């Protein structure tokens, strides 16, 4: 049995790693186990803290709090960081999604890099940009930039505003997860809680994706844009895990971030460790 312990399985009804994994591995269940057999495994989201059960446990250390702490020099995330480190320390295995965060947990043992995986079937290049612009009431005759994020400082909303001031010719699409996290950019076409299919169409309607994140690894929204073969304009943290090529979608496959390859990695991971999947 594969036990899945998520912080949030799917906050907005979107297809997340968790919903995808549960679908692909029918032997998985959303449950905190009280015991684990040798052929069982627990995939534990690291912010939940360690579950004191004997058995094979995998800490999913995907949160970027250590990087945020370093970037902003604050203690506000220390409690979360302590939880994440506790899970990383006691789990049998640790996984991160990026080489850039591997070093955060190496003191606790080996750290595997397993991408979270992006849905390359859903997020793909679409053919008719004009039709998409028309569908969403976007101008046909202007350059369109797309930004995904929140008002959180690590997302770099301030950088978006600065960039927009120096590029007045650009029309902006902003996509935010929730109303409370939403930004209110004057003149922009704003979307809140856009379904994933809509996000894909909006990425394809735009001329470029503006990355303002202040952290090194790419966020999922950026991976989705890369998967749509969007041109990336990176003005936040300049040192990223890789420099997108002229064909970013190829980069996604080359780096093994498509779900098919991610599934193979998990299958191999389980098989090598005697886990029944």
């Amino acid at each position: 049995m594969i036990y899945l312990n998520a912080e949030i399985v799917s906050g907005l009804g979107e297809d997340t790693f968790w919903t995808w994994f549960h679908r692909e591995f029918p032997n998985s269940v959303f449950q905190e186990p009280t015991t684990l057999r040798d052929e069982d495994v627990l995939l534990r989201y690291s912010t939940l803290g360690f579950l004191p059960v004997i058995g094979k446990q995998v800490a999913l250390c995907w949160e970027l709090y250590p990087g945020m702490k370093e970037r902003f020099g604050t203690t506000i995330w220390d409690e979360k960081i302590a939880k994440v480190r506790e899970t990383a320390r006691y789990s049998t295995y640790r996984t991160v999604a990026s080489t850039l965060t591997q070093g955060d947990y190496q003191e606790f043992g080996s750290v595997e890099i397993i991408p979270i995986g992006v849905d390359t079937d859903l997020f793909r290049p679409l053919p008719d940009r004009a039709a998409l612009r028309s569908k969403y009431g976007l101008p046909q005759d202007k350059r369109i930039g797309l930004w995904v994020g929140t008002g959180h400082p690590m997302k770099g909303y301030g950088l978006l505003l600065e960039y927009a001031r120096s590029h007045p010719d650009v029309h902006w699409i902003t996509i935010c997860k929730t109303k409370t996290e939403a930004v209110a950019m004057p003149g922009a076409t704003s979307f809140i809680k856009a379904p994933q299919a809509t996000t894909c169409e909006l990425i394809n309607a735009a001329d470029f994706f503006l990355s303002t994140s202040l952290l090194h690894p790419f966020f999922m929204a950026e991976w989705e844009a890369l998967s749509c073969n969007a041109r990336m304009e990176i003005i936040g943290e300049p040192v990223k895990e890789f420099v997108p090529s002229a064909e970013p979608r190829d980069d996604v496959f080359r780096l093994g971030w498509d779900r098919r390859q991610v599934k193979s990695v998990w299958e191999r991971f389980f098989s090598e460790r005697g886990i029944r999947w």
Partner: protein
Amino acid sequence: MRVSIVSLIYQSAVLADWVHDSVLKFTPLIARGDAEFFFVANDPAPGLLAHLDRRGYPHTTNHNRAYSDDELFALGYGTPEYMSRVYRGYNEGIRHARGDYVVLVNSDNYFSPDWLENLLKYSDRTKTISSTLVERSHPKFGVFPGAVNGEFGGTVAEFDEAAFLSFVAATKKTGLRAGGAYMPTLFHRDIAIEAGLYPTGNVAGSDFAHIRRYGDEAFFDALELLGVEHLTALDSIVYHLKEGEREDAPLLRTLEGDSREPNGIDSQFTQATPYPIAPAIGPVYDPLYPNPRHALLVAGLLGKPLPRSATTPMQLLREMAVQALRRTHLLGVARRVRQALGSMRAS
């Protein structure tokens, strides 16, 4: 320095290379400067020091004073004589260590990914943490009661690393169990010193041939009286060839005028397994692991001849009961209360 990893070495260049390479391969903490590894060349055979120097292996040399059996018995120690030199070698390693924690390993151990991190993660001053030992079924000694059976070779040349690492991947899991092997074991250096380090020999009974307590048992007893619990990490896995330096020893030599096996090793024991070994008794005794008395008890109950050092099954049962009590720390608490009352009366 956080951890010192220490291996005794006597004579085998092959095992020196084997354990050194294995430790370095699976201990990234060394490259990061959080751990050190060194040998204690304990009464080294001719040629061994030159080999260690040539390879640049960190080491310290320990030349032990030779004690006769009578001299050892006068100090309270029993057979075999060579164990006295082994324990003095361990103590020299602990003294020489720069780490807050010390792990003593055998030169015929082979390590696996995260073996040290997974000892450290459970460690503090109140615990000694042992690795889960994987051992082949030795034709003479079987499998140590605290160990897991795995057939990955009995010599360096035979060792099947790929198969062992696959076994580790499929076997290891987060968790602890009580007791375990005495080596590799991680303990806090200060506590080991506070416990008086290893007794420099097996603790003698009524005569030199009668052992009341093996030296490592006595050391762990002393730790326990300081409130230090002995546990085994289920996710730190180490292989044990169980041949020590006897068969993989190109530098092997015979001590002049010594009727025993080379380097003073008595044929009844090996330096790696200084007591007789029988198959595991079963999970019901897990909390009492490891206890070589189990092996003796089983042998006694099965009507097999007991080693000379062994007492009767009833005595063994009584000792096991006492050990169980010790594990609850009741004896330690009682002793401290008695001591406190004694000092109050004295004052």
